[in-house]
């Protein structure tokens, strides 16, 4: 023991002035570094508070129309949802979204979610439940709620038809057309329309397509087959209509139709995507969903 004492003393010898000065500086620098890095990370709060990070999220995102905090917290920012989406609708947010960096979102006008996968692949891919597994069918989704934002621009409201490629020849967006290919979405540009009165938002609505499929004549075995496949893939028959076309009479003798958003709308954004008017006459509101609309 007598030998150990001087050893411990040697270790506790006070630092030389030079060493002390160095460790003082190291401490000061470390303090500045802490403030700097933590400060920089907290800047991520700014876009969140300003509401600039609010976006159309993939199906099942843990959020209410005005609060995405739970989604921000639960997402691990890995992008597995991006990888499984057959129409590549999902993108990851960048640094300007602050805390929302790496969070998946959908730019509906560029590429909406048309439930081509039937079974909500993004939800199944999510490792953290940020896209909640409580969701069973596309019709249960609550992404937002469609609204005819520019009724005067709407072709149907003007009594006009539509002929040609919905979004022009250069548009890269994809949709699934059952009659072309049950499994693979094709470019919208490859599917020109010729419509007496424009009903694209209703015609292409995935919920409406599914309802029509379910209602098809039982004697039509092809349609039955499709309906059964979809059901097996996890796409049950939606209980409510999402959008309908209703006649409007302005008393000028022109046959006009109005797209009316119904309680079954999930906010997937296909109507906004397919609307041939620039900019879209129908858009998705993020601050609403079918549930909040029904409540009041």
């Amino acid at each position, binding site marked *: 023991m007598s030998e150990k004492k001087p050893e411990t003393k040697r270790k506790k010898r006070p630092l030389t002035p030079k060493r002390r000065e160095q460790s003082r500086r*190291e401490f000061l620098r470390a303090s500045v570094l802490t403030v700097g890095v933590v400060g920089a990370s907290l800047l991520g709060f700014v876009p969140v508070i300003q509401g600039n990070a609010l976006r159309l999220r993939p199906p099942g995102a843990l959020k209410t129309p005005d609060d995405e905090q739970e989604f921000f917290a639960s997402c691990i920012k890995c992008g597995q949802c991006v990888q499984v989406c057959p129409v590549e609708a999902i993108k990851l947010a960048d*640094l300007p979204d602050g805390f929302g960096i790496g969070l998946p979102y959908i730019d509906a006008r560029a590429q909406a979610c048309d439930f081509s996968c039937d079974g909500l692949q993004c939800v199944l891919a999510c490792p953290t439940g940020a896209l909640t597994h409580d969701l069973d069918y596309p019709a249960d989704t609550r992404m937002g709620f469609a609204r005819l934002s520019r009724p005067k621009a709407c072709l149907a409201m003007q009594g006009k038809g539509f002929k040609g490629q919905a979004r022009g020849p250069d548009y890269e967006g994809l949709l699934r057309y059952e009659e072309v290919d049950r499994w693979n979405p094709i470019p919208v540009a490859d599917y020109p329309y010729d419509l007496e009165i424009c009903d694209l938002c209703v015609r292409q609505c995935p919920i409406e397509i599914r309802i029509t499929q379910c209602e098809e004549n039982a004697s039509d075995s092809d349609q039955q087959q499709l309906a059964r496949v979809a059901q097996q893939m996890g796409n049950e028959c939606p209980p409510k209509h999402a959008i309908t076309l209703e006649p409007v009479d302005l008393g000028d003798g022109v046959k006009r139709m109005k797209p009316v958003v119904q309680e079954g709308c999930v906010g997937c954004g296909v109507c906004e995507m397919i609307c041939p008017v620039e900019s879209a006459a129908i858009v998705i509101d993020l601050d609403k969903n079918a549930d909040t609309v029904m409540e009041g």
Partner: protein
Amino acid sequence: MRYIKDSLLQVFGYKIPRPSKDQQSPEVRAIYEGKMGKLSKADLEALHIEHKGTTFFKKWQKRRWATLIIVNLLFVASFYFDVQLVEGSLTGARVVGFHFADLNAALQVALAYKHIVLNLVIGMVTVFIMWMLLGGRTFCSWVCPYHLLSEVAEYLHLWLAKKKIIKNRTFSRKVRSVFYVIFALLALVTGYTVFETISPTGILSRALIYGPGIALVWVGLLLLFEVFYSRRAWCRYVCPIGVTYGMVGVFSPVRVKYNAEACHHEGDCRKVCLVPHVLDLTIRNGAAEVNQDVASDCTRCGMCVDICPTDSLTFEVKGLSKMLK
């Protein structure tokens, strides 16, 4: 036990006191005493120059860079060619269907969200076991894409420092533990995964797989800071991922082993090391035993193994090495 205690102390930024004479084994004492005054400063200098290495790449560095690039390219190729081999990114992935979750990212999510779903638990356990077997901070030097960029920045930094254009500034190493606690608390209190916003590991991994973005500017700033102000600052003083895996590595059988017998104590290993405090035991009188393992803050990068002129530092797999010999 002592290894665990020393490792954790170092991970959290404390200095392990040098062993006193009576804490050293008689064998190692004999070695130190036998070497007393054997090498002059000029001899050490000559040794240093001799073993500076003729090529840029050394054996382990080559292997490590190749591994790092291949792992990250696997993610990229898997998505690009849609082969579903390694889906996701470094924060969370599915490797041929099995869940993998970065422990630090998962921890941030768990603290912010305050729930954990089963898939995440599976992913965490898988990754914990994987890195526990492979060395913990092995993640840093063998997988993290920021580490690679930072290594390049380090060469620039050292070159500029040699030309006396810049000076390296050091920080108190304890600051990394402070960051660890702060980011854990921020996740818990704010309910946002605050660290993920600035994590260059996540940003780079996503940029590689899903395409570059503005977030790369932040990574660029970090690199500039490392080139011109402080060598390897992010990995050394900030990154909580390193702390997480430093703790995992405490239980790892993959370690760098130090043998005091032939060591000249010339200190080349500490000059190339990302975390030179783990090599304090290579200083004369620094080791308590003849053979001693480098503590778990070591990233198992192999730079010291490459540079050591006497093979006093070697990779070992505890338990396995004996079988292999």
